């Protein structure tokens, strides 16, 4: 008899869990609603990129990456790590604003920001592992060899630790979804400690990503190489995060409207304006630092060269312009304009990281601009990982209480 009860319990659990995964639908229903234009496009991209990633384990890195002896790093790190990590500062910036500084009105966005941060770091690690020669040794800096004078050693430790911290920060949402109230209490108790740990780790590794390039002064274009690189990377990550919260919340409100509740949708317009204000101020702080670094490096004369023109495109078109758009949007209380400015600011940060890690690096080599254009395999793999990123993000948003509040745990 006892035996029978266990079986029933396990069956109950399986049914309950399947119900969670399929969101109350039956398998046929679930599969039917999966066939959408977006999913078909995603499947096509993945069907090209994933086999390529497998082929890498037969023919070596050269199958997937354009990297060479002169260009050891390419799009995987330029896009996945150097652009991906600042855009994932969302968790650290919003958690600090909400829990530490007391910006309580932003509550509807905190979880979304933490999730965006956690997934951003998770996928930054995926990009990194795609790029590593021997990814199965990813734990070596933690346990095998200690390159204590290396900035990358610091980045490795901090990204690993911070990934764990962010998982813990997001864990209340997972536990609410799983209806595990008691464990959730423990997870909530450590919030403040985790948030402060997040501030320490984030300020250090965001700036460390810039410090990585300090080791190669002779290879970098003097307009982008400055001893201010760590500070600039940190300052831009803060406004990147605010801009990214605008982007992610906008996309969620548009594409997952049915899954969001009034708490999220009803407050979003007002909060977006507030975020726009923060982003705009953040950009201006960054722009001031950028000008100080330009003056400090005394590289004014280079502004007249082709690289100088590109530098001006970056700071006028993708730093100053979004700040102005955001300022006007905030002044006019136009949510649309603020959203546009948010997207623009985020693109500006991506452009800056690509400029530092790819355009400015090795600028003196002949055929440089030609050599940094990634080939199709690398692009396909990047698109695949990005697609997976979106799919996982959506999978969580439609299930766990992120853009809606669980009534039981309000």
């Amino acid at each position, binding site marked *: 008899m006892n035996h029978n009860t266990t079986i029933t319990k396990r069956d109950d659990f399986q049914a309950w869990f399947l119900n969670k995964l399929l969101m109350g639908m039956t398998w046929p229903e679930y599969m039917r609603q999966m066939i959408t234009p977006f999913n078909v496009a995603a499947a096509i991209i993945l069907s090209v990129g994933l086999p390529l990633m497998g082929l890498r384990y037969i023919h070596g890195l050269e199958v997937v990456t354009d990297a060479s002896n002169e260009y050891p*790093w390419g799009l995987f790190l330029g896009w996945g790590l150097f652009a991906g990590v600042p855009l994932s500062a969302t968790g650290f910036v919003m958690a600090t604003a909400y829990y530490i500084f007391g910006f309580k009105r932003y509550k509807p966005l905190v979880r979304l920001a933490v999730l965006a941060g956690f997934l951003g770091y998770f996928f930054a690690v995926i990009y990194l592992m795609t790029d590593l020669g021997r990814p199965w040794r990813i734990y070596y800096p933690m346990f095998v060899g200690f390159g204590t004078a290396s900035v990358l050693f610091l980045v490795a430790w901090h990204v690993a630790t911070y990934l764990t911290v962010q998982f813990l920060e997001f864990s209340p949402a997972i536990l609410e979804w799983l209806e595990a109230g008691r464990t959730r209490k423990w997870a909530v108790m450590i919030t403040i400690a985790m948030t402060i740990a997040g501030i320490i780790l984030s300020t250090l590794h965001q700036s460390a990503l810039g410090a990585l390039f300090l080791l190669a*002064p*002779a290879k970098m274009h003097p307009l982008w190489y400055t001893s201010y690189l760590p500070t600039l990377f940190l300052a831009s990550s803060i406004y990147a995060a605010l801009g990214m919260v605008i982007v992610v919340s906008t996309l969620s409100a548009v594409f997952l409207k049915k899954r969001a509740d009034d708490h999220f949708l009803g407050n979003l317009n007002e909060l977006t304006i507030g975020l726009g204000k923060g982003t705009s101020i953040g950009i201006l702080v960054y722009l001031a630092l950028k000008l100080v670094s330009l003056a400090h490096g005394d590289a004014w004369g280079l502004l007249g060269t082709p690289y100088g023109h590109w530098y001006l495109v970056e700071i006028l078109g993708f730093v100053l312009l979004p700040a102005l758009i955001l300022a006007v949007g905030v002044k006019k209380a136009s949510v649309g304009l603020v959203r546009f400015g948010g997207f623009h600011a985020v693109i500006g940060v991506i452009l800056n990281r690509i400029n530092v890690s790819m355009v400015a690096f090795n600028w003196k080599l002949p055929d440089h601009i030609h050599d940094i254009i990634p080939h199709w395999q690398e692009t396909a793999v990047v698109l695949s990982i990005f697609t997976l990123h979106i799919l996982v993000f959506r999978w969580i948003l439609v299930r766990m209480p992120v853009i809606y509040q669980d009534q039981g745990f309000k």
Partner: protein
Amino acid sequence: MSLDRRQFLKTVSVLTGSAVLGPYTSALASGEFHGWPDRYGMLTDFTECVGCRSCEKACNEVNHLPQPEVPFDDKSVFDTQRRPTAHAYTVVNRYENTGDPGKPIYRKVQCNHCNEPACASACPIHAYTKTPEGPVLYNENLCFGCRYCMIACPFYVPAYDYASAFEPRIVKCVMCYDRIREGKIPGCAEACPTQSVTFGKRSDLLKLAAEKIAKDPERYIDHIYGEREAGGTGWLYISGVPFEQLGFSTDLPEKPMVEEVKGFLSSVPVVFTVWPALFGSIYAASRHHEAYTREEMQHQSKEGGKEK
């Protein structure tokens, strides 16, 4: 600075579990390091090199590298500029001689075995070692293939084996470390039929180079490349034409590359100690403000009640 203190500080920083704080102690420990005394080096004299590629051949043999596609006596390789690869520790390139167009200049390229190597400061797993003998060695058993050493090397030396699925590794000149330990000289220096590649104590080579330049100022420009560049290299060069004409980077800092990141690394312990105090206080202040406002409001509503 002695080995013992460096090792001691490093060990302490790891043992105390302060691996995250580690960069600071290590950066300090290497602060005044000016290179191992009595280390070996090499001197390349470009005015002597005839481009016979004997050094390439000897290097290939003593290091058991794969046979090249183009044989070592084929001079057609000089039509393009080459670099060390996953299959070659050293290559010789040809440059036009602006002074004497009929007599091209040949430049041998390989790892320069820096006094304080950027590759070693870049490596997060400590896979590189600057040996007391001089050669900079790489241990593939520690490497996870991030290739930051290649980013950091100011001389574009380390090459990577992108074609290997499971054992990709960095490949670079080892200055024939094993041969040096056996009392022999590196393969390339032994094979050179002219006086182009000389092996010896770095301090002696510096004197030799200075003597050569002093004795024949017509033949040489007054510069020993590698004496100061990037903090000084184990491999030194003298030439009859300016080094930039031979593709050398002439804008390298004279400090070791690691100096550029020490400022950043020294901020790490500050952040670890000041941030918790600062942000903890801000949190406490905002909680205090909340509680205070709540009390005030309760107080006011009580008083308001009394007045009624």
